[in-house]
C-alpha cells in the first residue's frame, strides 16, 4: 500500500534527516516506528503527508508517486490519511463537534451526513458528553481522543499517529493505544511513531527501528529494542 524506495532527505551535507530508507507497509497492517529524537521518524511522516518532499527516492501510495502529485490534488490525497499528533493540533476556537465536523466539511460532505456521523464517532471514543466543549476545557487524553475521532471520521485508508502518547499519562496512553488497535482491527492501516517502550510492547505488532536517518531493524515480533 505504502512503499518507500531509497528515500533520502538532505537539508545540508551535515544534516541528513533520512538516508536511503526503503520499506513497505501493507494494507490493514499496524506498523510502529521507533527511534530516538532525531532518528528521522517525524521527517518520514512529514514526507508521507507531503509537508516535505524527498531529496531522492520515491514514495508510492498505492500506485501513484506521492511527490509528483499536483498541488490541487494534495488536499484530496490528505483526506485519505487520518493524522494524530503529540500536540493534538485541535482548532482552539472550535468545539469538539466542530473540530471533527471540519474534516467532513473539508471533504465536501453534507450537513445531514455530518449531523449523523460526528456524534456516532465521538461515541466510539467515549466523548459523546463533551461534544460542545472547547479544546481548552478537555484533559490531554480527551483532546487526543478528539484528534482520533477527527482522523477516522472520513474513513481513511491509513491513520498516522505521530507520538500520540507523548503528552499523556500511562493510563491515557494505554487507552489511546487500545483505540488505535481497534481502528486497525476494523481494517484501517495504522502507522504509529513512538519512543515509549510500554506502548510498543502493548501493541505487539511489526516494529521498524530507526537511527540517524536509517532503518536499522524491521521486526515482525513487536518488541521494543533500542
Amino acid at each position, binding site marked *: 500500500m505504502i512503499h518507500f524506495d531509497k528515500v533520502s532527505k538532505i537539508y545540508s551535507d551535515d544534516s541528513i534527516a533520512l538516508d536511503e530508507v526503503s520499506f513497505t507497509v501493507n494494507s490493514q497492517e499496524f506498523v510502529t516506528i521507533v527511534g530516538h529524537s532525531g532518528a528521522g521518524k517525524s521527517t518520514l511522516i512529514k514526507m508521507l*503527508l*507531503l*509537508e516535505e518532499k524527498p531529496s531522492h527516492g520515491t514514495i508510492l501510495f498505492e500506485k501513484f508517486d506521492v511527490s509528483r502529485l499536483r*498541488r*490541487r490534488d*494534495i*488536499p*484530496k*490525497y*490528505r*483526506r485519505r*490519511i487520518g*493524522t494524530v499528533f503529540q500536540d493534538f*493540533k*485541535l*482548532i*482552539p*476556537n*472550535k468545539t469538539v463537534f*466542530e473540530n471533527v465536523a*471540519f*474534516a467532513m*466539511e*473539508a*471533504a*465536501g*460532505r*453534507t*450537513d445531514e451526513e455530518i449531523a449523523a456521523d460526528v456524534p456516532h464517532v465521538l461515541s466510539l471514543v467515549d466523548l459523546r458528553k463533551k461534544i460542545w466543549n472547547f479544546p481548552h476545557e478537555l484533559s490531554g487524553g480527551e483532546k487526543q481522543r478528539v484528534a482520533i475521532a*477527527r482522523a477516522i471520521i*472520513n474513513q481513511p485508508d491509513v491513520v498516522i499517529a505521530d507520538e500520540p502518547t507523548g503528552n499523556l499519562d500511562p493510563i491515557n496512553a494505554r487507552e489511546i493505544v487500545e483505540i488505535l488497535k481497534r481502528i486497525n482491527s476494523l481494517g484501517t492501516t495504522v502507522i504509529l511513531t513512538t519512543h515509549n517502550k510500554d506502548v510498543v510492547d502493548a501493541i505487539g505488532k511489526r516494529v521498524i527501528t530507526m537511527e540517524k536517518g536509517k532503518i536499522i531493524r524491521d521486526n515482525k515480533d513487536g518488541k521494543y529494542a533500542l
Partner: protein
Amino acid sequence: MTIWSNFKRTARAGFIGFWRNGFVSLASVLIMTVTLFVFGSTIFINALLEASIHEVESRVDINVYFSSSAKEDDILALKTKVETLPEVALPVEYISKEDVLGNFKKHHENDEVILQSLDELDVNPFGAILNIRAKEVAQYEGIARFFADTQTDDGGTQIQKINYYNNKQAIDSLGRAVDGGRKIGASITIALALLSILITFNTIRLSTYIARDEIAVMRLVGASNGFIREPFIIAGAMYGALAGIIVLGGFYPVTYWIASSIGDFFGGLDLFAYYIEHFGEITLLLVISGIVLGSVSSFLAVRRYLRI
C-alpha cells in the same frame, strides 16, 4: 454540495471565526475604523477644498465695457452669442448704461461736484457692461480673446475696454493656485488611501498570523486552499463592513460639530448638509472600501500560509 450550501457553510464559519476571536476581531475593527475614518475624511477635505476653490473662482470675472454709443440690441445679441460659448458659466450679467449711471450716482451721492458735472451733461456718458464668468479659471483667456476679436471686427466702436488684460497676471496666478490646490488635494487623498490600505493589510496580516497553526491543521486534514481561505475572507469583509458603519455613524456628530464651528469659512459649504445630502454615496464608498480592503487583505494574508 450545492453552491448555496457551500456559501452558507463558509459564511457561518467566517461569522463564528469573527465572533469567537473576539479580541482579535475588536482590534482589527478598531484599526480599520481609524483608517476608514482617515479615508472618509479625505472626502470631506476635498469637498471643503473644492468649495473654497469654487468660491475664489466665482470672484473672478471679465468685465466688457461698451461705448456709450453702442446700441442695446447689439449688446444683447452679443450677450446671447457669448452665452452659447461652452466655457462661459451662466448667467452672463448685463448692466445697462442707465443702471451704470444709477450705480455711479449712488456711489458718489455725497460728492456734489461730480453729481453737478453729470447733470450738466445732456447725454449719459457711460456705456453698458457685460460681466462674464468662466467655468474654469484657465478658460478666461479664450473668452477674452473672443471679445478682443469682436472689438477688432467692429473697429473699437462698440467695445471700449476688456478688463481681463489688466488682471491677466492675477487671474493666471489664481489659475495656478487653483491647479496647485487640486493637485495637493489629490496627492493627499492618494497618500492617505495608500496609508490606510497598508495599515489595514498589516492589521489583518497580524490577525491571520495568530491563526497560522490553525491553518496548518486545516491543511493537514485535507482542506483545500479555497475552503481554508474563504472564512478568513468573510471575517475580513465583516471587519471592513463593521468599521465602515462605525465611521459612517461617527461622521454624523463630527460633521455637525465642524459645520457649526467653521461656519461659512470654506466657501460657505455646510459640511453636515453635505454629509446628509451625499449619505448614500458616502455609505457605499466607506462600507464597500472596508469590505474590499478587509477581504483582499485577508486573501493576501492567508495566501502566505497556504504554500505547500
